[in-house]
């Protein structure tokens, strides 16, 4: 830990503020240990090296591919039935 220990670091302040805020799972207060662990896990080396944190290139290409395919089929349908 670095910096002045008396001065709350931004992230601490955010997390403590969140204690009075929303929650993310059934029956749990906003900032329970699960949420805190989940937030920290998102920044862990394991997560950053996992497939979920990798490039979004493939899912974006897939989604755009389906979008273009759908629009192309829509045009074909209009031509066929109009």
């Amino acid at each position, binding site marked *: *830990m670095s910096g002045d220990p008396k001065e709350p*670091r*931004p*992230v*601490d*302040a*955010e*997390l403590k*503020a*969140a204690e*009075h*805020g*929303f*929650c*993310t*799972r*059934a*029956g*749990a*207060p*906003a*900032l329970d*240990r699960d*949420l*805190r662990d*989940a*937030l*920290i896990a*998102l*920044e*862990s*080396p394991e997560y*950053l090296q996992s*497939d*979920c*944190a*990798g490039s*979004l290139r*493939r*899912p*974006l290409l*897939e*989604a*755009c591919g*389906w*979008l273009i*395919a*759908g*629009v192309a*089929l*829509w045009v074909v*349908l*209009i031509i*066929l*039935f*109009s």
Partner: protein
Amino acid sequence: MRPYSGFAAFLWTSAALGSASYAYLVGSSLATIGNTWASVIGYWIGTLIGMALVSLAVGIPSFRTGIDTVDAAKSALGVRGSLIFMVGIVFSCVGWGNILVAMTARSAAVLAHSLPLRVGSQDEGIAIAVAVALVITIWWLASKGPKAVERLTRWCVPGQLLVAALLLILLFVKYSAATVAQAHVPVARMLTTDHRLQVMLAVEFGLNNGFTMTPFLGGLTRLAASRRIVVTPPVLGYATGAGFISGVAALATAVTGTTSPLDWLTVVAGPALGSAIMLFLVVANVAALVAFIYLGGISIQQIGHLSRMPWKFTTALLLLPSVFVAFRTQWMLDSVMDLLTYNGVMFVGITGVLLADYYVLRRTHVDVAHLFTRAHHGRYWYQGGVNWVAMAVVVDTTAGYFLMFNPVTLAVAAPFRFMGAAAPLLMATVLSYVVLSRLVHGRQPLPEVRRKVVEVEL
């Protein structure tokens, strides 16, 4: 933590979501558009496009961060503004859940007529008794949590798809392939004889069906373990599940000339098998109802006080309106369904705002810790916790939608014939949200791409 790792399992679950029992009712409505095949194919294409957009807007962000849609939407709508999204979700879940209660109860009353025991004027009594029994059953099952939902879906959905496949086979066996291929409702009953407009209406219905997944898809993709399965299985599975059941119902309606599923089930499958299938569909509705109440319960737990309430009381709270509905099933079907259809339109605007915010303004980077920060220094606090720009754009889009197309009266404006309503409005939403955000908020600083690992003391 992320149970879905296989392509097939995720595809199956998504198909399950698309193949709820009310897809039979949707299919019967599709047939009345005009050309049956144009309607069925157009509906599938519309759902495919809608799901691709929803996948971009909420599926990918939730997959990336591991949080559900209401939380992920806070970056665009504001930490408090996301509550409006939650209200829409709860309204949809509880509303459509109660529509299903009413439909199931009325179907059971009609079904009772086909049994040897004649019930005569006791129809209303049967409907009330079935509705009350359903409410109690749903509460009992929903109280058991996600495991019960998963188990019910596992058994009911394959059954629904098998029943639809059986009905399709029966259609081709009982009527010739040529009859099925050429079957359309009589011209007098068609919504329009304009072929172009028929295609547009079918695609519009499909697009709206896709957009209704906006509140729910993030909850599913956050459970996916790999980028390989996060887009194609939900898009293809949901569109095909919904399209298949609706398509079978549309063909059956066109061939038999009757719009009520109970009527054409009896004609296509015969009185005994038709009644048995109807009974199965009534039971299968319970799975969808439990899922609706479960999703609604999860959503209202975003509110601090309700999050501390025991789960059994939360589900009971959501089912309170159902107790009233049990005694007024016909009123529910006559009056509330229109209101819910109007409510669904807001998801077009929300999808557009989420797309613009995540890809154009934030370049796919969201600071998750700030999504849970209810304080002025939070990055997504905006003004009083609400992004009023997003709210204004959503309201504008919804109003514009009704000018282009009224989903209840089906009245359309002239431009609808060229691109429908949802597609051009979604593009307008993206553009107006980006421009207005730049004007009002300026160029927002992008969150750091990689934040350092932080030590947190509680």
